[in-house]
């Protein structure tokens, strides 16, 4: 009895989870494996369209002979690079039609024209013409004739499914593509974005954790950048920072803080001298990181605030009795209580920032020294149209992420052991 109950429970569980699991597997896990496959192939954007035989039907009446009609099919192979094999053709005609000249490749039976065109090489074109006459002399309805569409079929190789593999993509990614620079940019962007958002998260959480008028309102305002659509925010920032008539530059010029406008999103380096040391700051990258921090510190804020509100009040009361100062309380009570949240946040934000595409893409498009790995996936795959290269860069991202996760958990595990 118990056994059958457990069995039905199992069965029910599989039925309930199956749709979700199947969908997630086919849309998320399968593509990751497909990436590996594609990254070892030389595929370009134009290759992935399956070649199709196409026919454009043109109906022409023949002057002086109203009972006859000429039909012209403009046949072509849609692909510029691949051939189509065994092309077959079919079209239907009204019941009173008789064919005048039959092409040797075709047959006309039961008002159905069938043709076998054989193999079409790439770029193949042909004007195929048939003449019909009505057998009862009635007038021909051209519109009706045009509305019947011919059917074509053919076989072709799918470049994605053959087994020609190459290591070229990975060689190119790792050795030709200024890989070190790409990696460093991604690392700066990810690391400073993550650290910045966590620091601001701590500050704001500490702030909102105190009692003041309008606190709940403040909490929702702080989350605005996180919940608003990235497209709207990125373009607003772009307009604010625009060098020609952007608000920020206009304001700075108006208050005579600067003399010439600064192109915050379009300038790769800016020279800064502090204490006689000249060094170059990556300006556009810094701006993009600022945007990133501005947009994502709310998440850190929310996590840390939730943790702060769970710290027992007795700890602070005891500290008050001992005469601790506000800074002592912060460093000795608050900070140790939130380290666990911070380490989780660091991991989550690091992974997501590492893969961030939209923000950089919308602000700079990857120009002026802001090309990160995800931007490179897009540029390789869609701007240069080299799908194989794009996939190879994706694989590099996945491998780096797995490595990061591995080391992070190892480090974290060690620290837990020590405690």
């Amino acid at each position, binding site marked *: 009895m118990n056994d059958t109950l457990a069995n039905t429970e*199992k069965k029910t*569980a599989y039925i309930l989870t199956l749709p979700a699991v199947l969908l997630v597997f086919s849309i998320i896990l399968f593509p990751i494996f497909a990436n590996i496959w594609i990254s070892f192939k030389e595929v370009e954007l134009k290759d992935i369209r399956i070649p199709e035989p196409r026919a454009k039907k043109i109906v022409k009446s023949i002057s002086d002979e109203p009972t006859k009609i000429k039909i012209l099919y403009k046949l072509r192979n849609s692909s510029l690079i691949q051939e189509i094999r065994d092309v077959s053709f079919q079209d239907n005609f009204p019941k009173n039609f008789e064919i005048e000249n039959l092409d040797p490749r075709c047959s006309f039976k039961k008002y159905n024209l069938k043709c076998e065109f054989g193999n079409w090489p790439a770029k193949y074109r042909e004007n195929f013409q048939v003449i019909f006459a009505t057998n009862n002399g009635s007038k021909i309805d051209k519109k009706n004739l045009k509305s019947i569409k011919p059917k074509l079929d053919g076989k072709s190789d799918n470049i994605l499914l053959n087994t020609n593999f190459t290591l070229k993509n990975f060689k190119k990614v790792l050795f030709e593509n200024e890989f070190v620079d790409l990696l460093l940019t991604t690392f700066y962007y990810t690391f400073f974005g993550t650290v910045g958002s966590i620091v601001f998260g701590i500050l704001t959480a500490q*702030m909102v954790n105190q009692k003041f008028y309008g606190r709940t309102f403040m909490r929702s*305002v*702080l989350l605005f950048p996180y919940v*608003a*659509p990235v497209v709207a925010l990125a373009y607003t920032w772009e307009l604010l920072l625009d060098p020609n008539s952007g608000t920020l530059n206009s*304001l700075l010029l108006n208050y005579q803080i600067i003399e010439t406008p600064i192109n915050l999103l379009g300038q790769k380096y800016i020279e800064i001298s502090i204490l006689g040391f000249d060094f170059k700051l990556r300006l556009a990258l810094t701006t993009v990181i600022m945007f990133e921090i501005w947009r994502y510190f709310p998440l850190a804020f929310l996590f840390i605030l939730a943790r702060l509100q769970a710290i027992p009040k007795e700890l602070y009361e005891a500290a008050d009795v001992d005469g601790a100062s506000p800074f002592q309380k912060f460093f000795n009570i608050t900070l140790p209580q939130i380290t666990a949240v911070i380490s989780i946040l660091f991991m989550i934000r690091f992974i997501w920032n590492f893969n961030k595409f939209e923000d950089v893409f919308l602000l700079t498009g990857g120009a002026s020294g802001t090309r990160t790995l995800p931007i490179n*996936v897009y540029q390789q795959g869609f701007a240069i149209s080299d799908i194989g290269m794009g996939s190879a860069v994706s694989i590099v991202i996945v491998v780096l992420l797995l490595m990061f996760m591995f080391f992070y958990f190892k480090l974290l595990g060690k620290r837990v052991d020590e405690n």
Partner: protein
Amino acid sequence: MRTKNTILFSLISTFFLIFLISIWKILATLQGLSINSFNIEIIFIFGLLISLAHLGIGDRIKSIYKSIIFSAIFVFCDGYLIQKLPIWYNVGVFLILYFFTNKISKYTFIGLKEEHSTQVILFDFLTLFGILFFSFVILFPFYMMLVTSFKTQIALLVNPLDFSINFGQDIKDLFKSYFVIFKSYKFGKYIVISTIVSVGTVIITLLFAIPAAYAVARLNFFGKTFLSTSILIIYMFPAIVLVIPLYTIFSQLGLRNSIEGLLIVYTATTLPVAIYMLQGYFKSIPKELEEAAILDKLSWFGIIIKIIIPLSIPAISSVALYVFMIAWNEFLFSLMFLDNPNSFTLSRAIQYLSGDAETPRQYLMAGSVVVTLPVLFIFVYFEKYLVSGLTAGSVKG
């Protein structure tokens, strides 16, 4: 100790005052006033004098009179004698000063002698400063987005700092950018598409996620722990690595430029977080209710429909709101999969609009307002549900 604290207090409060007035000046400049300098030196001297005078006078005058007197003197000297600016600006300065003097009114000579008072002052003012600073930094772009959408190209060229809205003009002129984007750029259609995609994603996600979350929360089966950990791992996986394979597959299947394609991808990407959030809630529902239902010979379908769903309306609605917001804001996949202007979502349409360098910025901002408003509205209105859900599921971003 007392002198040190007195100096520190007056310096900190003065810097706070400078900050307040500077923000007000920036906002006033953006209303078209020509203010060319922050006059920091003058405010600095005044601020020091006010805070020292405040300490010196102490309780001898009622604090409300004290505040009014200080504010009036400041406004008279700064606004009237030096800068000669309109009344509304000076009223603003007066209110700021009033707020400021009220804030410092709790500090007295005696209080400054107490232990740690330096740090307490620092902490208090840093908090105040932080609240105002972050509010300004966050709200400023949203404010600029809104006001820019009401300006015209010519007005912005004449004075790029004048964002004042002329409410005297015709409604048609005021909302001109909005009329244009709806008429010439078909934004009405894009709103419909975005709504269909987002609502559709919500419905399909819930249909898939509720049974799956129930099974993970309640039933025992082989592979359950594997499933629940893989949900979290999959959730971590970056969308950018899915783009190329999905693009190739969707191209070959003819799913690009179709709402169905977007629905499939959005559902798959939101499913893990939906299941994760829902199963946590389902676990908190008392088991006895279901046991009674099993005795009544209800099937699993009946249990979910009649017991689980009615009991978890709050969790389901918060998941629904989240999924809606994710789908509404989504950009990467809509960029990859849509290139026919007839099937754009709002985000993609705005990006397309910006691709044309000729597009005036107020149209772009009007579009941004249109795409932002629904999300912010939902967020503010349902904030309570959403905040608890955010920490539980930590929506991807």
